[in-house]
């Protein structure tokens, strides 16, 4: 499929999404209202002092805004969001996945090694091809940030499961 055709299809999908964004907000508002009702009564004299009152008002604000947005969406058919091309979207997705991998990497290998690995992967995903340069930068960033935060500012960074098991701190 040609990129222009893909883009057209993508924008078509997103145009539909814009129309339903109001409905999504209404749904969130309804959910908030239901959950707020479960919190109990709304009398200020009750033991819980109407703790559901504030959220329920916000729920109704969301429902109102959702209705207005869905009506606006129907009115203005020309309003279309500019979504990125598929390759760009894939890059964003991979950068995000690498970011998510940061947590298990740090919990397994510790901050120093985990951050270095994820930094390197992200550099590569964002277009850097020189392996040696990635390694040097990853090592510098991990060591410098570790030194500043852990040693100078005494902020406790994760030790990691493997270093703990090996008795390395």
């Amino acid at each position: 499929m040609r990129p222009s055709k893909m883009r057209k299809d993508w924008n078509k999908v997103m145009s539909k999404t814009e129309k339903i964004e109001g409905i999504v907000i209404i749904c969130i508002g309804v959910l908030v209202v239901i959950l707020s009702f479960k919190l109990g009564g709304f009398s200020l004299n009750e033991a819980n002092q109407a703790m559901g009152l504030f959220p329920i008002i916000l729920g109704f604000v969301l429902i109102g805004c959702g209705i207005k947005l869905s009506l606006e969406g129907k009115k203005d058919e020309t309003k279309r969001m500019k979504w990125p091309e598929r390759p760009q979207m894939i890059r964003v997705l991979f950068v995000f996945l690498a970011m998510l991998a940061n947590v298990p990497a740090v919990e397994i290998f510790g901050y120093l090694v985990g951050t270095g690995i994820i930094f390197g992967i992200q550099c590569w995903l964002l277009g850097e091809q020189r392996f040696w340069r990635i390694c040097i930068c990853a090592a510098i960033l991990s060591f410098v940030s570790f030194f500043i935060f852990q040693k100078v500012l005494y902020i406790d960074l994760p030790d990691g499961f493997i270093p703990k098991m090996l008795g390395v701190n």
Partner: protein
Amino acid sequence: MSIFEYLLNGFAVALTPNNLLFAFIGSLLGTLVGVLPGLGPTSGMAILLSVTTAVDPTAGIIMLAAIYYGAMYGGSITSILINIPGEAASVVTCLDGYQLAKQGKAGLALSMAAIASFIAGTVGLFGLVFFSPILADFALAFGPPEYFTLMVLSLTMITGLSGASMTKGFVMAAIGLLITAVGQDPMTALPRFNFGTVTLLAGINIVAVVIGVFGISEILENSEEPGMILFQKINKLYPTVKELYCSVGAILRSTVSGFFPGLLPGMTPSVVSFMAYDFERWLSSNRERFGKGAIEGVIAPEGANNAATSAGFIPLFSLGIPTTPPLAILLSGLMIYGLTPGPILFQQRPDFIWAVIASMYIGNAMLLILNLPLVGMWVRFIKIPYPYLAPGILAFCFIGTFSIRNNMFDVWTAFAAGVFGYFMRKLHFPLAPMVLGLVLGPILEQSFRQTMTSSGGSFAICLSRPIAAGFLILTLIVLIVFVLLKRKVTIPDESNS
């Protein structure tokens, strides 16, 4: 004690080596935040908030404030040299700044931007010194109804000014307020929306959400197209006496046009800089020069955004109302230290408040002295390739989030908020109202329920008290004005820039 004596005491505290060092570090980091495209003052301050909590409250807040005004200075460098605004308030500076750079006058544009920023920022601080205590004294008469209506007015103004659609602004403000409802009820401490989990009982961390919504989402958006940057050379750096003399009028006008709007909630430095630029162009006898390299086109937005930055501290310190998202971060920083800004803070902790104000004078002077000779160094920072810059910022987002409460749940929260922020940017939902909602949520709910309790559940109490009624009428006027305005003009969005 008089204001002058308080200020002198403030200088005595601010000039201690420790506080001086943190003002210096804050100014440097702030300039770096302003210089780096893809890292605005809000996300920069949110990421660095955890660093400031590692030191004592005075030094921490001095550093946080320095990061804010440092970012305001720094943003102009990238606008002038590479036509990429480092932060939203410098968008207008690109128009004439980059044109001047292309004409070989990058040095002149940079130096005039720094001088205008310094003068406007310093004059703004005089306003802060004299207006804050007066406003704080006035605010002593405020009860829950006044605070509640004032916060409603602030949220309405910020919502109205932060994007093309007011409805979307209200949605974001409501989401921000709802996030603060998770955890424990502020009045009864009973669990609320925690779905039976212990993790959610402590609530969703505001800083984690802000780092995600501003920092991570910005990185994700920039990852779509990590592009190349073209620089303009810097030749003559310092202006001549004649050039300075000719610019005095523009500097003073930008100070006034930035300071007074900057006092109002929602009048972010980015909005104010647009207004000041338009005002300067309207006053000029030679309007066609604007956009082609007029030095006033650099002075007006830069002076105005720094004056507005200083002015924003007045409602924050004296009323506890943040007028912009970075000031909301500063407010959450104060809350972390257990300090509640407002009239009481001036009475209870004058040493702290006046030290922070005095440090701003010092920080402004530092920035002027440091920025010009260090332009070359800042340019090198911009040259860091994006494949290295983005993962580096993400690593700092990770530390910034993790270190708040030393738990991974906050990191996951930041990631989730990052994805949410990315899609909200794409769908043109403004992010600023959400941050304000996050910060004001607990105070707003508390004052609302106190108001309702004291009146036996009747909202009429807000109409029977003159100040509260005044705020409500203002809210109504603001709403009507924005509804009419939105049909005619598009207001720049601070967060989605």
